[in-house]
Protein backbone atom coordinates (compact mmCIF):
# COMPACT_ATOMS: atom_id res chain seq x y z
CA UNK A 1 0.00 0.00 0.00
CA UNK A 2 1.01 3.62 -0.54
CA UNK A 3 0.04 6.57 1.62
CA UNK A 4 0.08 9.94 -0.13
CA UNK A 5 -0.52 13.20 1.71
CA UNK A 6 -1.37 16.18 -0.47
CA UNK A 7 -0.96 19.77 0.70
CA UNK A 8 -2.46 22.54 -1.41
CA UNK A 9 -0.54 25.78 -1.35
CA UNK A 10 -3.74 27.65 -2.22
CA UNK A 11 -5.17 26.76 1.19
CA UNK A 12 -7.55 24.00 0.18
CA UNK A 13 -7.88 21.33 2.90
CA UNK A 14 -5.16 18.73 2.70
CA UNK A 15 -6.00 15.23 1.56
CA UNK A 16 -4.63 11.80 2.28
CA UNK A 17 -5.11 8.89 -0.08
CA UNK A 18 -4.12 5.30 0.50
CA UNK A 19 -4.07 2.91 -2.39
CA UNK A 20 -2.67 -0.27 -3.85
CA UNK A 21 -0.29 0.66 -6.70
CA UNK A 22 -0.89 -2.72 -8.29
CA UNK A 23 -4.32 -1.40 -9.27
CA UNK A 24 -2.84 1.32 -11.49
CA UNK A 25 -3.73 2.92 -13.82
CA UNK A 26 -6.50 4.70 -11.97
CA UNK A 27 -7.54 6.76 -15.01
CA UNK A 28 -6.09 7.60 -18.42
CA UNK A 29 -3.60 10.49 -18.13
CA UNK A 30 0.06 10.34 -17.09
CA UNK A 31 2.20 7.27 -16.50
CA UNK A 32 0.25 4.48 -14.80
CA UNK A 33 0.77 4.79 -11.04
CA UNK A 34 2.17 8.32 -11.34
CA UNK A 35 1.20 11.07 -8.91
CA UNK A 36 -1.06 12.52 -11.61
CA UNK A 37 -2.72 9.16 -12.25
CA UNK A 38 -3.33 8.60 -8.55
CA UNK A 39 -4.65 12.09 -7.86
CA UNK A 40 -7.05 12.20 -10.79
CA UNK A 41 -8.15 8.65 -10.05
CA UNK A 42 -9.06 9.73 -6.53
CA UNK A 43 -10.97 12.83 -7.61
CA UNK A 44 -8.20 15.33 -6.82
CA UNK A 45 -7.53 17.98 -9.44
CA UNK A 46 -4.01 18.45 -10.76
CA UNK A 47 -3.47 20.59 -13.83
CA UNK A 48 -2.08 18.66 -16.81
CA UNK A 49 -2.42 20.77 -19.92
CA UNK A 50 -0.48 18.36 -22.11
CA UNK A 51 -2.63 15.41 -21.11
CA UNK A 52 0.12 13.90 -18.96
CA UNK A 53 2.49 13.45 -21.92
CA UNK A 54 5.56 15.10 -20.38
CA UNK A 55 5.29 18.18 -22.59
CA UNK A 56 4.62 20.96 -20.06
CA UNK A 57 5.13 21.69 -16.37
CA UNK A 58 1.57 22.30 -15.20
CA UNK A 59 1.58 19.13 -13.09
CA UNK A 60 4.67 20.30 -11.18
CA UNK A 61 4.60 19.17 -7.55
CA UNK A 62 7.09 19.61 -4.72
CA UNK A 63 7.83 16.46 -2.74
CA UNK A 64 8.09 17.39 0.95
CA UNK A 65 8.96 13.93 2.22
CA UNK A 66 9.70 10.61 0.58
CA UNK A 67 11.49 12.15 -2.43
CA UNK A 68 14.22 9.51 -2.27
CA UNK A 69 11.62 6.76 -2.62
CA UNK A 70 10.71 7.88 -6.14
CA UNK A 71 12.52 6.52 -9.18
CA UNK A 72 14.95 9.05 -10.64
CA UNK A 73 13.61 11.47 -13.21
CA UNK A 74 14.50 10.81 -16.83
CA UNK A 75 16.01 13.33 -19.23
CA UNK A 76 12.68 14.49 -20.67
CA UNK A 77 11.29 15.30 -17.22
CA UNK A 78 14.51 17.04 -16.18
CA UNK A 79 14.47 19.19 -19.32
CA UNK A 80 10.96 20.38 -18.53
CA UNK A 81 11.58 20.86 -14.82
CA UNK A 82 14.43 23.11 -15.86
CA UNK A 83 11.76 25.52 -17.12
CA UNK A 84 9.28 25.11 -14.27
CA UNK A 85 8.41 28.17 -12.22
CA UNK A 86 9.20 27.73 -8.53
CA UNK A 87 11.59 24.85 -9.15
CA UNK A 88 12.97 23.22 -5.98
CA UNK A 89 15.51 20.43 -5.41
CA UNK A 90 12.60 18.07 -4.75
CA UNK A 91 10.39 19.10 -7.65
CA UNK A 92 8.86 16.43 -9.88
CA UNK A 93 6.33 16.30 -12.66
CA UNK A 94 3.21 14.56 -11.43
CA UNK A 95 2.70 12.79 -14.75
CA UNK A 96 6.14 11.14 -14.62
CA UNK A 97 6.81 10.37 -10.95
CA UNK A 98 5.58 6.83 -10.40
CA UNK A 99 4.91 5.87 -6.80
CA UNK A 100 6.57 2.63 -5.72
CA UNK A 101 4.85 0.19 -3.39
CA UNK A 102 5.14 0.44 0.38
CA UNK A 103 6.02 4.10 0.69
CA UNK A 104 4.73 7.27 2.29
CA UNK A 105 4.99 10.60 0.55
CA UNK A 106 3.93 14.16 1.19
CA UNK A 107 3.59 16.49 -1.76
CA UNK A 108 2.70 20.14 -2.16
CA UNK A 109 0.74 21.38 -5.14
CA UNK A 110 2.06 24.89 -5.85
CA UNK A 111 -0.31 27.82 -5.92
CA UNK A 112 1.01 29.31 -9.10
CA UNK A 113 1.95 28.09 -12.49
CA UNK A 114 2.69 30.36 -15.42
CA UNK A 115 0.90 30.37 -18.69
CA UNK A 116 3.97 29.37 -20.59
CA UNK A 117 5.40 26.02 -19.70
Amino acid at each position, binding site marked *: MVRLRIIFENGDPERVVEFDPAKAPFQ*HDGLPGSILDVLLGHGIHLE*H*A*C*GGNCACTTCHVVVKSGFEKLPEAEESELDLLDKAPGLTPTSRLGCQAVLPNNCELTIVIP*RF*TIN*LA
Partner: protein
Amino acid sequence: MSAGERRVYEGRITRIVRRAPDTRSLFFSLPAGERLAYRPGQFISCQLPVGSDILTRPYSLASSPEDEELEICLNLVPGGRGSAYLFGLGVGDTVRFTGPWGSFCLDAAPEAACIFVAEGTGIAPIRPMIARALAAPREWPIALHYAAAGRDQVLYAEEFERAVERHACFTFSPVLDGSLRAVIERTYVAGDADRSRHFYICGVGSIVTELRDWLRATGYERRAVQYEKW
Protein backbone atom coordinates in the same frame (compact mmCIF):
# COMPACT_ATOMS: atom_id res chain seq x y z
CA MET B 1 -3.21 32.72 -12.38
CA SER B 2 -3.89 29.93 -9.93
CA ALA B 3 -4.90 26.39 -10.68
CA GLY B 4 -8.61 26.10 -11.35
CA GLU B 5 -8.81 29.63 -12.76
CA ARG B 6 -7.61 28.86 -16.23
CA ARG B 7 -9.21 30.89 -18.92
CA VAL B 8 -11.23 28.64 -21.14
CA TYR B 9 -11.64 29.67 -24.77
CA GLU B 10 -14.32 28.46 -27.12
CA GLY B 11 -13.14 28.12 -30.69
CA ARG B 12 -15.61 27.79 -33.53
CA ILE B 13 -14.52 25.67 -36.48
CA THR B 14 -14.43 27.82 -39.59
CA ARG B 15 -12.72 25.45 -42.02
CA ILE B 16 -11.60 21.86 -42.27
CA VAL B 17 -8.80 21.07 -44.70
CA ARG B 18 -7.67 17.58 -45.64
CA ARG B 19 -3.88 17.52 -45.55
CA ALA B 20 -3.22 13.84 -46.23
CA PRO B 21 -4.96 10.49 -45.76
CA ASP B 22 -6.43 10.55 -42.24
CA THR B 23 -4.78 13.91 -41.55
CA ARG B 24 -6.63 17.18 -41.46
CA SER B 25 -6.39 20.72 -40.22
CA LEU B 26 -9.12 22.34 -38.18
CA PHE B 27 -9.26 26.13 -38.25
CA PHE B 28 -10.84 27.97 -35.33
CA SER B 29 -12.02 31.49 -34.76
CA LEU B 30 -12.62 33.01 -31.36
CA PRO B 31 -15.55 35.22 -30.44
CA ALA B 32 -15.30 38.84 -31.59
CA GLY B 33 -12.76 40.77 -29.59
CA GLU B 34 -10.94 37.71 -28.26
CA ARG B 35 -7.45 36.78 -29.29
CA LEU B 36 -5.04 34.11 -28.14
CA ALA B 37 -1.53 35.47 -27.62
CA TYR B 38 0.92 32.66 -28.20
CA ARG B 39 4.45 31.92 -29.25
CA PRO B 40 5.29 29.95 -32.40
CA GLY B 41 5.46 26.31 -31.33
CA GLN B 42 3.06 26.37 -28.40
CA PHE B 43 0.00 24.16 -28.02
CA ILE B 44 -3.55 24.40 -26.79
CA SER B 45 -5.15 21.95 -24.40
CA CYS B 46 -8.54 20.85 -25.72
CA GLN B 47 -11.26 19.75 -23.34
CA LEU B 48 -13.23 17.16 -25.30
CA PRO B 49 -16.55 15.79 -24.04
CA VAL B 50 -16.32 12.12 -25.01
CA GLY B 51 -18.86 9.83 -23.42
CA SER B 52 -19.01 10.65 -19.72
CA ASP B 53 -15.39 11.93 -19.71
CA ILE B 54 -13.81 15.27 -20.44
CA LEU B 55 -10.63 14.31 -22.26
CA THR B 56 -7.61 16.61 -22.07
CA ARG B 57 -5.87 16.54 -25.42
CA PRO B 58 -2.99 18.83 -26.40
CA TYR B 59 -2.65 20.01 -30.00
CA SER B 60 0.18 22.14 -31.29
CA LEU B 61 -0.82 25.29 -33.10
CA ALA B 62 0.22 25.01 -36.72
CA SER B 63 -0.77 28.62 -37.26
CA SER B 64 1.35 31.69 -36.60
CA PRO B 65 0.43 34.23 -33.93
CA GLU B 66 -0.16 36.79 -36.69
CA ASP B 67 -2.79 34.63 -38.40
CA GLU B 68 -6.45 35.46 -38.04
CA GLU B 69 -7.43 31.89 -37.26
CA LEU B 70 -5.99 29.20 -35.05
CA GLU B 71 -5.04 25.96 -36.79
CA ILE B 72 -4.41 22.52 -35.41
CA CYS B 73 -3.31 19.63 -37.61
CA LEU B 74 -4.00 16.10 -36.48
CA ASN B 75 -4.04 12.45 -37.45
CA LEU B 76 -6.93 10.13 -36.94
CA VAL B 77 -5.31 7.85 -34.37
CA PRO B 78 -6.52 4.23 -34.50
CA GLY B 79 -8.52 3.73 -31.32
CA GLY B 80 -7.86 7.34 -30.27
CA ARG B 81 -10.94 8.79 -28.59
CA GLY B 82 -9.80 12.40 -28.85
CA SER B 83 -8.93 12.42 -32.53
CA ALA B 84 -12.09 10.43 -33.38
CA TYR B 85 -14.15 13.09 -31.62
CA LEU B 86 -12.44 15.93 -33.46
CA PHE B 87 -12.75 14.15 -36.81
CA GLY B 88 -16.49 13.91 -36.14
CA LEU B 89 -16.91 17.66 -35.85
CA GLY B 90 -17.98 19.96 -38.66
CA VAL B 91 -17.80 23.62 -39.57
CA GLY B 92 -19.68 25.66 -36.98
CA ASP B 93 -19.03 23.25 -34.11
CA THR B 94 -17.10 24.54 -31.12
CA VAL B 95 -14.18 23.22 -29.09
CA ARG B 96 -13.26 24.39 -25.61
CA PHE B 97 -9.60 24.77 -24.81
CA THR B 98 -7.05 26.42 -22.53
CA GLY B 99 -3.68 27.78 -23.44
CA PRO B 100 -1.31 28.61 -24.81
CA TRP B 101 1.03 26.06 -23.26
CA GLY B 102 4.49 24.68 -23.74
CA SER B 103 8.03 25.89 -23.83
CA PHE B 104 8.96 24.31 -27.15
CA CYS B 105 8.90 27.52 -29.11
CA LEU B 106 10.94 29.97 -31.09
CA ASP B 107 9.98 33.51 -30.37
CA ALA B 108 12.99 35.78 -30.72
CA ALA B 109 15.10 36.00 -33.84
CA PRO B 110 17.54 33.09 -34.17
CA GLU B 111 21.07 33.60 -32.89
CA ALA B 112 22.54 30.63 -34.72
CA ALA B 113 21.82 28.30 -37.58
CA CYS B 114 18.51 26.53 -36.90
CA ILE B 115 17.94 22.91 -37.80
CA PHE B 116 14.31 21.87 -37.66
CA VAL B 117 13.54 18.16 -37.58
CA ALA B 118 9.96 17.00 -37.90
CA GLU B 119 8.26 13.65 -38.13
CA GLY B 120 4.65 13.34 -39.36
CA THR B 121 2.27 15.79 -37.72
CA GLY B 122 5.22 16.92 -35.60
CA ILE B 123 5.55 19.53 -38.32
CA ALA B 124 2.65 21.45 -36.71
CA PRO B 125 4.65 23.41 -34.11
CA ILE B 126 7.69 23.58 -36.40
CA ARG B 127 5.81 25.37 -39.17
CA PRO B 128 5.21 28.68 -37.31
CA MET B 129 8.72 28.48 -35.82
CA ILE B 130 10.18 28.38 -39.32
CA ALA B 131 7.96 31.28 -40.37
CA ARG B 132 9.25 33.30 -37.42
CA ALA B 133 12.87 32.36 -38.15
CA LEU B 134 12.54 33.31 -41.82
CA ALA B 135 11.03 36.68 -40.88
CA ALA B 136 14.11 37.63 -38.85
CA PRO B 137 16.25 40.42 -40.27
CA ARG B 138 19.46 38.40 -40.26
CA GLU B 139 19.30 35.27 -42.33
CA TRP B 140 21.00 32.43 -40.50
CA PRO B 141 21.03 29.09 -42.28
CA ILE B 142 17.71 27.39 -41.63
CA ALA B 143 17.09 23.78 -42.55
CA LEU B 144 14.04 21.56 -42.34
CA HIS B 145 14.40 17.79 -42.37
CA TYR B 146 10.94 16.33 -42.55
CA ALA B 147 10.37 12.59 -42.19
CA ALA B 148 7.11 11.21 -43.57
CA ALA B 149 5.81 7.84 -44.64
CA GLY B 150 5.27 8.95 -48.23
CA ARG B 151 5.32 11.96 -50.52
CA ASP B 152 1.59 12.53 -50.01
CA GLN B 153 2.17 12.77 -46.26
CA VAL B 154 4.66 15.61 -46.39
CA LEU B 155 2.37 18.27 -44.96
CA TYR B 156 2.66 21.89 -46.14
CA ALA B 157 5.13 20.75 -48.83
CA GLU B 158 4.18 23.45 -51.33
CA GLU B 159 4.52 26.13 -48.70
CA PHE B 160 8.02 24.99 -47.79
CA GLU B 161 9.00 24.73 -51.45
CA ARG B 162 7.86 28.31 -51.99
CA ALA B 163 9.87 29.38 -48.95
CA VAL B 164 12.97 27.80 -50.50
CA GLU B 165 12.45 29.94 -53.60
CA ARG B 166 12.08 33.12 -51.54
CA HIS B 167 14.80 32.56 -48.94
CA ALA B 168 18.30 31.60 -49.98
CA CYS B 169 19.06 30.68 -46.37
CA PHE B 170 16.35 27.99 -46.22
CA THR B 171 16.64 24.35 -47.27
CA PHE B 172 13.83 21.81 -47.23
CA SER B 173 14.63 18.10 -47.24
CA PRO B 174 11.83 15.56 -47.06
CA VAL B 175 13.03 12.19 -45.73
CA LEU B 176 10.84 9.42 -47.09
CA ASP B 177 13.00 6.33 -46.61
CA GLY B 178 13.30 6.13 -42.84
CA SER B 179 16.85 7.47 -42.83
CA LEU B 180 16.24 10.54 -40.66
CA ARG B 181 18.84 9.72 -38.06
CA ALA B 182 21.44 8.85 -40.69
CA VAL B 183 20.78 12.13 -42.48
CA ILE B 184 21.20 14.17 -39.30
CA GLU B 185 24.34 12.26 -38.35
CA ARG B 186 25.92 12.63 -41.75
CA THR B 187 25.11 16.32 -42.05
CA TYR B 188 25.58 17.72 -38.57
CA VAL B 189 27.92 15.42 -36.71
CA ALA B 190 30.16 13.57 -39.13
CA GLY B 191 30.07 16.44 -41.61
CA ASP B 192 31.99 19.02 -39.56
CA ALA B 193 33.05 20.07 -36.08
CA ASP B 194 30.58 22.98 -35.83
CA ARG B 195 28.45 22.52 -32.71
CA SER B 196 26.91 25.99 -32.62
CA ARG B 197 23.67 25.03 -34.35
CA HIS B 198 20.31 25.00 -32.60
CA PHE B 199 18.00 22.04 -33.09
CA TYR B 200 14.22 21.93 -32.82
CA ILE B 201 12.87 18.39 -33.04
CA CYS B 202 9.25 17.27 -32.93
CA GLY B 203 7.58 13.95 -33.60
CA VAL B 204 5.69 11.10 -32.05
CA GLY B 205 8.19 8.27 -31.94
CA SER B 206 11.33 7.37 -30.04
CA ILE B 207 13.35 9.04 -32.80
CA VAL B 208 12.83 12.34 -30.96
CA THR B 209 14.60 11.29 -27.77
CA GLU B 210 17.16 9.24 -29.71
CA LEU B 211 18.19 12.31 -31.68
CA ARG B 212 18.19 14.43 -28.53
CA ASP B 213 20.48 12.06 -26.65
CA TRP B 214 22.75 11.52 -29.56
CA LEU B 215 23.17 15.20 -30.51
CA ARG B 216 23.92 16.09 -26.91
CA ALA B 217 26.38 13.24 -26.65
CA THR B 218 28.23 14.43 -29.73
CA GLY B 219 28.94 17.92 -28.50
CA TYR B 220 25.82 20.04 -28.87
CA GLU B 221 24.85 21.91 -25.72
CA ARG B 222 21.82 20.68 -23.85
CA ARG B 223 19.81 23.84 -24.43
CA ALA B 224 20.76 23.91 -28.09
CA VAL B 225 18.67 20.78 -28.58
CA GLN B 226 15.03 21.61 -28.00
CA TYR B 227 12.38 18.99 -28.63
CA GLU B 228 8.82 17.94 -28.08
CA LYS B 229 7.71 14.33 -28.17
CA TRP B 230 4.04 13.46 -28.53
